[in-house]
């Protein structure tokens, strides 16, 4: 199918045609940088929000649990691209005038990055929430009772007993979500943030070598995947409990 296609892997080393002092590889690396910044910042938010909401969903207080349930219901049932457009195009309009104006005066790339980080953080947070919740729920019910019976308060019981075990149970699915943050970060290209996939698309327009450019971007995503898996495996091994199989 490539009989009329002339391959040229050297295209990445050509200087960019816009006159910037870089080559096309430099563009891809700049995109990779944005992808990493976006994914890591978003995963911090996702983890913090996810843990809080996951805990809320398992508390005996009905209102707190309902708050967690509502959060998950909204953020898991609206497509991520729609959420992103809401953060980027809608929210600044709904903020008080002075805040909205301040936001719109920020550099465009800062606006995009901020919206994308918040969007991905809260979107992924809903998924983390469910993992933490099910991690807590797979623990035997007696663990909570035993912690309380020793006089630990409910927050202490979560902090010292339930969460440390729930985290360990949740590491394998959290690994997939960590990979998903990187994959989902590509959606930020739709509001113009020049992350990895956006740079790949830009290269198509500038170099007319779509296959090479997509192949490199794809390979980088796969590489990120492998790195995340390796790191998470190390984490898993280092917190493994002697003799403990897990859950029930």
């Amino acid at each position, binding site marked *: 199918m490539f009989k009329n296609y002339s391959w040229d892997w050297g295209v990445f080393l050509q200087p960019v045609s816009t006159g910037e002092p870089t080559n096309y590889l430099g563009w891809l690396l700049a995109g990779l940088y944005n992808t990493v910044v976006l994914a890591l910042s978003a995963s911090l938010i996702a983890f913090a929000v996810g843990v809080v909401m996951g805990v809320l969903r398992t508390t005996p207080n009905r209102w707190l649990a309902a708050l967690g349930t509502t959060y998950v219901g909204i953020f898991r049932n609206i497509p991520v691209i729609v959420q992103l457009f809401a953060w980027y195009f809608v929210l600044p309009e709904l903020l008080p005038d002075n805040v909205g104006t301040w936001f719109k005066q920020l550099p465009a790339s800062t606006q995009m990055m901020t919206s994308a980080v918040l969007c991905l953080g809260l979107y992924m947070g809903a998924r983390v929430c469910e993992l933490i919740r099910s991690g807590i729920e797979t623990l035997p019910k007696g663990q909570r*009772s035993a912690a309380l019976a020793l006089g630990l308060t409910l927050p202490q019981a979560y902090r010292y007993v339930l969460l440390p*075990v729930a985290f360990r149970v949740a590491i394998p699915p959290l690994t997939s979500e960590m990979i998903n943050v990187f994959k989902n970060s590509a959606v930020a290209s739709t509001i113009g943030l020049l992350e990895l996939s956006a740079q790949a698309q830009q290269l198509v327009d500038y170099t007319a070598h779509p296959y090479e450019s997509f192949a490199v971007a794809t390979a980088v995503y796969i590489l990120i995947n492998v790195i995340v898996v390796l790191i998470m495996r190390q984490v898993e091994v280092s917190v493994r*409990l002697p003799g*403990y199989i897990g859950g029930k």
Partner: protein
Amino acid sequence: MIEINNVSKQYGTFHVLTDCSTKVAKGEVVVVCGPSGSGKSTLIKTINGLEPINKGDIRVNGTSVCSPKTNLSQLRSKVGMVFQNFELFPHLSIIENLTIAQIKVLGRKRNEAGDKGRKYLDRVGLKDQAAKYPAQLSGGQQQRAAIARALCMDPICMLFDEPTSALDPEMVNEVLDVMVQLAREGTTMMCVTHEMGFARKVADRVIFMDAGRIIEDTSKAEFFGNIEGRTDRAKQFLSRILQH
């Protein structure tokens, strides 16, 4: 020490406990028995507020468990509890299991808590297991560690919720031996158990429950000595227990 007054509890229309009343005096050992589903585990869990109740009142050392003004954590820290499934914390070593509540609840220093923990581990015969994790111990060892964990809090009384029913038969005695020793030292104890041998040996009183009610609440001598004077339900239960 423990006063249970007219306690009732229901889930929807299902009555788990109906109008239960009893007392446990200081130094007394009370065994609670009855068929499964009779509400005995629920009853013992109401004493430290792990199971909320709908009616009645429970007092431990004069403090009401049900009053919203009571600091439940503080009260629970004084009431030791041992669970059917041990419920050691899997992510903590045995010694950490014994010290965490001492440090976080009682505010003891780490080394003070550690000393206390090792003392009680020695008493239950687990001195060498301090650094191990729960999953590396046998069931009997885990339950003895769980008893030591409760003792570390210097409880004013101990609650046992079927402490031997999740154990392999050959491990039951090592746990019972620890409990007998505690009873002989004058520990106030309330034990839900089917181990009638334990009851004969150390109980002061025996409570028999069925369908959420306390049907009998008598001295050990009366319960085991006067079989003819027992209710039909208790007779049935005893004959079934003795057969196996």
